[in-house]
């Protein structure tokens, strides 16, 4: 790890002068971004192994691989880890790295708070793993009482872990908002910002206003478990719906926390590889904000069957369906962006295209589920499982990979191998559809979720799912191999391997410690493909690029 001597390559860069700098408190947003990504990817592996365990258990009916109680523990940790320790922090990591660069800023607004946010995630992750080791967090990631107040001690650790992760999120969101508002380079007006920055603003607003409500709910849960207060148990006068209300007030907007940054990444990837300006810039930006606001007014659609006042069903059904409008605006804008473009089918682009198609499937099944008469029938069946994986994996994770393939050269100075990338993509894509498409059918036929076994008539569908899940696990291997190998032997990327607009591509790869040696001045919109020359593709490199910032 002495890449220091090599200009513009190697991970040992940024504020991290040596490898160990990545293991300690470091305030460089680029180092923190990589810390987030590595931590999140580690949890992706852990959560993935748990998923494989679930699919192994369900490969055949009446399997005795794990007990029902162990199965509950595994599915709880799988859900919680994938949401709170993979998707959310992975997006935070990617945004941490690229958003300040995109805005022409030299760091985040509060560099030390940024590091604190990351280091709050570490005890959160460790507590989560401890809860798994101790056992007891068996009530699903939604942790509905009364089950979640009667389970063993691991559930308390689980709640504490989420509390840490929540604080990490809140501080991160405040940091992003101040950064985007205040640290934009001269000329970078709000409507010249890359759409990822807009997406991060919308996401951060949701985190800011939603996560504290989860913190409050978790505080009550912890108090009930430790002090015997009866907040959520009817026997003591409490109200189990209170938990559901507070939990979903956060957790429904949280699904937009998990998808809006993905929308932002897709809006960055498509113009680069279609060589066209983004279609409908303002509509995409404002629809993110609309989703952030409306996202807060739909939460009770998770509770149609939980005994809440039936009078509330219709308003929540209507607001839920309205969300489809700003989402549809984005989908059509993206389709118009690639329409008649000069498409380059890089791995990043493949993931982005898969994102659009898979997310549309997940979105449509979401509209199904928002409709009260259908929801009452398919609530808590595998149809819901299929839906949420189409948006969270087919949507969020595909977008994450699209972003990783786009920015890996910027992070490391090296190119990823495209052939291995395509292998990764196709295995993921096929495995994903094989796993989750049959679950729509199983769900409509009435197979309940969160049960450790099933009647024999569901065997065929479940076996297909399990084979698909196995493929998805295999798919990670070429990616890991590719990412690690390319660090050392990948083709040197240079400042702008994709010939992309965006301030991050005007810097060396990886960028120098303090980002911009001279403050950039922004003069045009961020997606001028085909309209003006791409900076950094001139014969003479821009100042501060070739010399690695010297």
């Amino acid at each position, binding site marked *: 790890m002495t890449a220091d001597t090599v200009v513009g390559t190697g991970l040992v860069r940024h504020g991290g002068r040596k490898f160990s700098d990545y293991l300690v408190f470091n305030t460089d947003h680029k180092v923190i971004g990589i810390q987030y990504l590595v931590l999140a990817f580690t949890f992706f592996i852990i959560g993935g192994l748990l998923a494989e365990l679930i699919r192994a258990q369900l490969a055949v009916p009446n399997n005795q691989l794990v007990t029902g109680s162990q199965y509950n523990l595994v599915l709880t940790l799988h859900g919680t880890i994938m949401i709170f320790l993979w998707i959310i922090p992975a997006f935070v990591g990617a945004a941490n790295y690229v958003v300040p660069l995109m805005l022409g800023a030299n760091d985040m607004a509060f560099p030390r708070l940024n590091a604190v946010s990351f280091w709050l995630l570490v005890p959160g992750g460790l507590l989560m793993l401890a809860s798994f080791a101790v056992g007891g967090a068996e009530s699903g990631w939604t942790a509905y009482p009364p089950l979640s107040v009667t389970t063993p001690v691991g559930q308390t650790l689980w709640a504490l872990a989420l509390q840490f992760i929540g604080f990490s999120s809140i501080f991160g969101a405040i940091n992003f908002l101040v950064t985007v508002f205040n640290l934009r380079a*001269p000329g970078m007006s709000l409507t010249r910002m890359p759409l990822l920055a807009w997406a991060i603003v919308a996401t951060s607003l949701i985190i800011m*206003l939603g996560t504290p*409500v989860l913190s409050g709910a978790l505080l009550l849960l912890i108090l009930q478990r430790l002090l015997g207060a009866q907040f959520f148990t009817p026997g003591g006068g409490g109200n189990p719906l209170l938990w559901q209300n507070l939990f979903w007030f956060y957790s429904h907007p949280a699904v937009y926390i998990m998808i809006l940054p993905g929308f932002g990444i897709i809006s960055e990837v498509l113009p680069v590889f279609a060589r066209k300006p983004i279609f409908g810039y303002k509509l995409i930006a404002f629809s993110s904000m609309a989703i952030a606001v409306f996202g807060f*007014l739909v939460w009770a659609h998770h509770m149609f069957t939980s005994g*809440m*006042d039936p009078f509330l069903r219709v308003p929540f059904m209507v607001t839920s369906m309205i969300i489809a409008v700003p989402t549809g605006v984005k989908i059509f804008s993206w389709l118009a962006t690639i329409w008649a473009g000069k498409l380059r089918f890089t791995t990043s682009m493949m993931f982005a295209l898969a994102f659009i198609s898979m997310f549309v499937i997940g979105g449509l099944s979401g509209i199904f589920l928002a409709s009260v008469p259908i929801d009452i029938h398919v609530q808590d069946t595998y149809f819901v499982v299929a839906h949420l994986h189409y948006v969270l994996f087919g949507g969020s994770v595909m977008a994450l990979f699209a972003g990783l393939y786009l920015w890996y050269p910027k992070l490391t100075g090296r190119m990823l191998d495209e052939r291995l990338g395509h292998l990764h993509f196709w295995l993921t894509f096929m495995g994903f559809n094989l796993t989750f498409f049959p679950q729509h059918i199983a769900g409509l036929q009435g197979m309940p979720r969160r049960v450790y076994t099933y009647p024999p008539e569901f065997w065929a569908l479940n076996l297909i799912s399990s084979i698909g899940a196995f493929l998805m696990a295999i798919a990670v291997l070429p990616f890991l191999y590719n990412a690690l190998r390319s660090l050392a032997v990948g083709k040197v990327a240079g400042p702008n391997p994709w010939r992309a607009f965006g301030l991050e591509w005007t810097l060396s790869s990886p960028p120098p410690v303090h980002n911009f040696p001279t403050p950039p001045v922004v003069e045009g919109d961020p997606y001028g493909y085909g309209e003006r020359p791409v900076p950094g593709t001139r014969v003479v490199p821009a100042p501060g690029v070739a010399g690695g910032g010297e």
Partner: protein
Amino acid sequence: MKHVDPAKEALQPHRYPGVRTYLLVFAGLALLTLIEVAVSYITAGIRVPLLILLAALKALLVILFFMHLRYDSRWYAFIFFAPLVLVIPLIWVSLIR
């Protein structure tokens, strides 16, 4: 050197209220607290709305004067008060049985 959009507010010395205003606000807060306690002993149906109104008034006094929202950028006021729009459905739905 400085790039500050002239249309927006610049980083500048504040025009905060003086000691006299603070003392007046303080006196108002103390008086309102006394009124609250007195009101809490009446039994008429107006008690609860009156108490809420008094509390809101006190909170506003602190926010507008002590926290300078009356004198600072409108953005701060927006950031602080906008969440209340979401609080209404949250509390309302939580209370429906």
